């Protein structure tokens, strides 16, 4: 009996989630008409679903926008400030120490 009940529950889930073909739906309606136990099971399952919808929580519009913004900020590639500073200092020292006609050749190396 539990096997049959398990199959009936799967069938009801498939029906409610619109995963049955037209022919399967017609069979389903026939079953509802002819089998009182199945009809009772369907009504109970439907009622439980209706009640469970009350558990749905909504996300506020401002929170939704803020979270999306945070995701983009957090996923930006991190800038290595130390490396940038080093490179700037090296450039600056080179500019002072090396005569300007030579600098482009050094930078190319």
């Amino acid at each position, binding site marked *: 009996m539990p096997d049959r009940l398990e199959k009936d529950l799967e069938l009801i889930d498939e029906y409610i989630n619109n995963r049955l073909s037209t022919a399967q739906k017609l069979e389903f309606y026939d079953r509802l008409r002819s089998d009182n136990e199945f009809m009772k099971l369907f009504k*109970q399952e439907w009622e439980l679903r209706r009640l469970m919808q009350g558990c749905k929580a909504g996300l506020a519009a401002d929170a939704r926008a803020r979270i999306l913004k945070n995701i983009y900020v957090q996923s930006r590639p991190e800038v290595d400030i130390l490396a940038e500073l080093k490179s700037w200092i090296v450039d600056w020292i080179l500019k002072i120490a090396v005569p300007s006609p030579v600098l482009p050749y050094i930078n190319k190396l």
Partner: protein
Amino acid sequence: MDFDKVYDSYADMVYSYIRFRIKDRFLAEDILQDTFLSVYRNQAQLSKVRSIKAWLLSIAHNKMVDRLRKTRHEELSYSPGDESNAAADHPQLENNVFIDQLLGQLDETSRQIVYGIYVEGLTCRDMAEILGIPEGTVKSRSFYARAKLREWLEEDKNDAR
């Protein structure tokens, strides 16, 4: 599907799944952000997954479990929402309290399973993927939990008569 579209389509669904277990709104929003940050960094997988819904919820579930493990003291046992005081005046809230009481009698995993099946229309296969447990376990747990819920629903109807 690009990231913005995924976020637009599924943020509410993921948030609701998290809030079902975590009553603290700010913690839930934090976990939602972590979830979608992970989705953003793994966008390449979006085209390969069997079910986007199940994939997103499995990430959310893992983030939620990690967070609860880290802040064990913050874990909330399932309890009726804040609405309970006003329930008498509002039929919808009364329903919420009633379903909260029913769900409160189930274990955590079974609650997540019935939420997934009843609210999100997920299959046992999806729930197995989300919770990281065998499909057979989900089936047996859902079978037992749903039987209990139907039984309690009937008892309540009989009491009301």
